[in-house]
């Protein structure tokens, strides 16, 4: 068994998004097994780690930043990560979560939790992160090394980014990635 | 009946005799500035007082154009006493009329020798405040339409253009394109139908040069257009004037009617084959319609939006015909150039900027008003001598020239001669002649924001860089002035300034970043203070005030 330092330490995180990007990551299928030997998944919704570790090589961030908690996470990631990948349209553009930006937050909450509620209408205000007035992409808060658009990004594109990172070359996304 | 030079001279003589038959001629400024402080009522009360004192035979009250020093209006001027009164109220009439034979009313007296008057040189404004803008006879008595006669009867179109070229006159609308060259291009175009358009869509905030000329001496512009029409081979002209200038519009209408009746417009002018007719077109208040191609679209009855150039209007303009578009002040210079020769005009001003320039002084300056100085006059002379300096003992900070397309000129350039090239060198432009003076109470980020908001709301929306770029620029400036800006915002400002300037379709967008660029160039420290220390030195920005309140 090789010492852990030689493996690329990879993290993934899921902010304001639908987890579709993570699903697409899993769609890489068998090829994942091929690279599994050279990576360490140190933090992810797919693993059990509770706290974001130090010294992460690459972090794939799915989802937009919609709350103070999201931004805290982003800063924590940035401090402890060499390369940040904005992973999917929500992280890159705000995308579907950002569609609420054209309304006032109050309107959105009222619509969701009061007008459309069938049981105990109440706007939740305890024990949950406070939502921002506006949803913004990841790069509005922290520096991002790589943008991987797509809703979700195609498995091929994700695999290309992953392989490129492992091989230390710039990824070639031509024809593989686009918004939407 | 065709007008002859003898007719013209006779009209001039009758008019002069009539005016001089009065012992005292009281000229009351009836331009928009003084009218806004009721100079019409002053005029009426002076007339009433003359009747009351039985001096109708000795005193003539005339409504004239702008006397220049708008700050202290209503102004009246009494000749031959050479007395000017300021801030005249209707109740002052008895005292003024009563004092005609004795000592002037000292409390109203405006010192005649003050630099505001003595340092100016008037060509464009030579008749302003002297003739009655509503009477063509008054203009003719001042030598009006002689130049048109001279051009039509004694010069070929080529000779007229040669004089204009020799004068070195450059467009007074902003860009400073050589007028002779523009005329030559239209002259050379082979199409049978050509047009002359007078651009009177003055829209820069704080600028009122063209308005004053049109209100004070409308025939001068008409004469300039007719000469231009003769020179380039056009028989029809349009004056595109903004509807926000109702007085100018009214006086132009009247002037055109008078000119047609007399025969200086119409068929066979001065018994030559030359025919020229002028129509008015009112702009509906879009700043972008001052841009030549947008102006053309608007005259044609289409949406006032610019189109890419080339083709230039001189080749492909109004209804696809070669079109000469000149600004009001440019055309107002034509009659004197024809009358006195291009060489005379070229003897005034600097090497590359000939003649004089009219400026509208506004902002933090004592003598708000309209001035005309030779090109090359220093900013210091304009602001401190003619303009009377900064009020309330405050310190001069900068002067914004060229409106929203221009830039600010800071203190270190006060001794710079004002001409097209020196202004461009320091990142400002001559523009149409608006000068907004700012004192140390001005926040330059706020100034930039003001102009960017103007450009954003005046952007026509046709091209993407201007439409969205100005909105993004304004958003960043708003953020910075609210105290929420970051240091990266300053970089984004610079980047967007470059982008919008380089890629926008028309002059509006291409120059929209100028106020931001020039304030960044000379006052970047104010920007950084806003974003780093959340501090507005001048205390203008809201966050600055909030901070002061807490400390």
């Amino acid at each position, binding site marked *: 068994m090789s010492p852990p330092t030689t493996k690329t330490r990879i993290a993934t995180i899921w902010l304001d998004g639908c987890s579709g990007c993570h699903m697409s990551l899993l769609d890489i299928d068998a090829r994942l097994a091929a690279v599994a030997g050279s990576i360490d998944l140190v933090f992810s919704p797919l693993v059990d780690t509770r706290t974001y570790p130090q010294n992460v090589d690459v972090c794939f961030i799915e989802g937009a930043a919609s709350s103070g908690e999201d931004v805290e996470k982003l800063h924590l990631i940035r401090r402890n990560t060499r390369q940040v990948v*904005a992973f999917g349209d929500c992280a*890159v*553009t*705000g*995308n*579907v979560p*950002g*569609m609420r*930006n*054209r*309304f006032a937050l109050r309107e959105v909450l009222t619509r969701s939790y009061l007008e459309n509620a069938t049981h105990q209408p109440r706007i939740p205000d305890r024990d949950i992160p406070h939502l921002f007035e506006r949803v*913004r992409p990841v*790069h*509005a808060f922290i520096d*991002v090394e790589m*943008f991987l*658009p797509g*809703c979700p990004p195609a498995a091929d594109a994700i695999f290309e980014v992953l392989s490129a990172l492992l091989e230390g070359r710039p990824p070639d996304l*031509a*024809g593989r990635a*686009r*918004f*939407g | 009946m065709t007008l002859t030079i003898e007719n013209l001279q006779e009209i001039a003589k009758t008019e002069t005799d009539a005016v001089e038959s009065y012992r005292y001629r009281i000229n009351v400024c009836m331009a928009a500035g003084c009218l806004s402080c009721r100079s019409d009522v002053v005029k009426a009360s002076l007339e009433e007082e003359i009747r009351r004192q039985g001096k109708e035979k000795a005193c003539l009250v005339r409504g004239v154009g702008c006397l220049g020093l708008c700050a202290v209006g209503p102004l009246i001027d009494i000749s031959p006493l050479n007395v000017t009164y300021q801030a005249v109220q209707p109740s002052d009439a008895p005292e003024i009329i009563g004092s005609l034979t004795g000592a002037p009313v000292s409390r109203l007296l405006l010192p005649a020798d003050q630099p505001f008057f003595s340092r100016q040189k008037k060509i464009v404004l030579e008749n302003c405040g002297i003739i009655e803008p509503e009477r063509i006879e008054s203009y003719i008595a001042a030598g009006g339409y002689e130049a048109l006669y001279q051009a039509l009867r004694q010069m070929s179109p080529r000779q007229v253009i040669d004089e204009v070229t020799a004068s070195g006159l450059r467009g007074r609308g902003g860009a400073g394109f050589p007028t002779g060259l523009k005329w030559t291009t239209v002259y050379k*175009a082979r*199409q049978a139908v050509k047009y002359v358009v007078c651009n009177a869509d003055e829209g820069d905030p704080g600028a009122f040069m063209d308005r004053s000329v049109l209100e004070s001496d409308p025939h001068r512009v008409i004469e300039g257009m007719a000469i231009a029409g003769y020179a380039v081979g056009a028989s029809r002209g349009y004056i595109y004037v903004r509807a926000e200038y109702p007085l100018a519009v009214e006086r132009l209408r009247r002037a055109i009617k008078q000119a047609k009746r007399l025969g200086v417009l119409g068929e066979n002018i001065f018994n030559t084959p030359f025919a020229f007719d002028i129509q008015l077109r009112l702009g509906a208040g*879009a700043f*972008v319609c001052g841009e030549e191609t947008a102006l053309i679209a608007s005259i044609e009855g289409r*949406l006032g939006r610019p*189109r*890419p150039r*080339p*083709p230039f209007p001189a*080749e*492909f303009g109004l209804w*696809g015909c070669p079109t000469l578009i000149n600004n009001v002040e440019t055309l107002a210079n034509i009659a004197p150039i024809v009358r006195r020769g291009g060489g005379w005009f070229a003897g005034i001003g600097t090497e590359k900027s000939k003649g004089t320039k009219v400026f509208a002084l506004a902002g933090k300056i004592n003598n708000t008003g309209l001035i005309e100085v030779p090109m090359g006059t220093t900013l210091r002379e304009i602001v401190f001598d003619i303009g009377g300096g900064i009020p309330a003992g405050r310190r001069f900070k900068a002067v914004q020239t060229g409106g929203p397309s221009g830039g600010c000129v800071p203190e270190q350039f006060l001794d710079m001669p004002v001409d097209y090239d020196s202004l461009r060198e320091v990142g400002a432009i001559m523009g149409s002649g608006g000068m907004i003076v700012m004192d140390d109470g001005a926040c330059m980020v706020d100034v930039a924001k003001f102009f960017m908001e103007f450009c*954003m*709301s*005046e*952007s*026509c*929306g*046709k*091209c*993407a*860089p201007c*439409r*969205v*770029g*100005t*909105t*993004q620029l304004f*958003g960043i400036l708003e953020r910075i002035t609210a105290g929420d800006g970051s240091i990266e915002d300053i970089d*984004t400002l610079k*980047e*967007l300034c470059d*982008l919008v300037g*380089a*890629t*926008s*379709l028309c002059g509006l967008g291409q120059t929209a970043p100028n106020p931001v660029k020039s304030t960044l160039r000379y006052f970047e420290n104010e920007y950084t203070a806003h974003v780093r220390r959340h501090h507005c030195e001048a205390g203008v920005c809201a966050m600055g005030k909030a901070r002061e309140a807490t400390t």
Partner: protein
Amino acid sequence: MTPTAPIAQKPRTDVNPVRIYTLRIDGRDVSGREDETILTVARQNGIFIPTLCHLDGLAERGACRLCIVEIQGSPKLFAACVTLVKQDMDVITDSARIRDYRRKILELIFSERNHVCAVCVVNGNCELQDLAVKLGMTHVRYDYLNPPQSVDASHPRFSLDHNRCVLCLRCIRVCKDIEGASTWDISGRGIHARIISDLNQPWGESETCTGCGKCVQVCPTGALSEKGKSVAEMTKRPQFLPYLQMMRKEAEI
């Protein structure tokens, strides 16, 4: 078929369509007629210049500014779609400076309204989306303006979603110049400019709309679409235009 020179609103009387010029585009020797634009000549020679407001068969506007090119000897940039070729012109369509400007302009366009490709009816068939890929625009660095835009679904067969409109005004041009209905127009200015039908009435109540659907086909984004199509289900077919143009021209002769 090579598209003929686009019809201008007014025929240019100052150009001679018979004269042929030789010039250089990106270092290649090419030739073009005096009334042809840099864009036309570049495309005839297989040189790619991105465009958005341009569409073969419609009058040019020169408005999106994505087709800007450099001409040697001038510090200014020129919109290739409206700049006519000249003898010995030396055109550069793909410098680092131009690529940078184009990407930034595209970012501005993306930031202007609410372009959410993932839920758009033309996802996968959108000129704006394609341009992002072609110009290498991976993200938008400017603030999203997120304006509150409306949707007009009053027409029985089509709908208009202002959220996706890039103000290319192809709809206005095709409706006025090709269909002759002049249903579409623009109201407001600057950032507040928007497409309107008739005198700002709901499209479905328009008395001038013939329901021909040309506007829908030429719209580069999902702003105009056919009803009954869901996300990614709509494909635009603007190819009819040059043929229509050609046939009309032949009919005239």
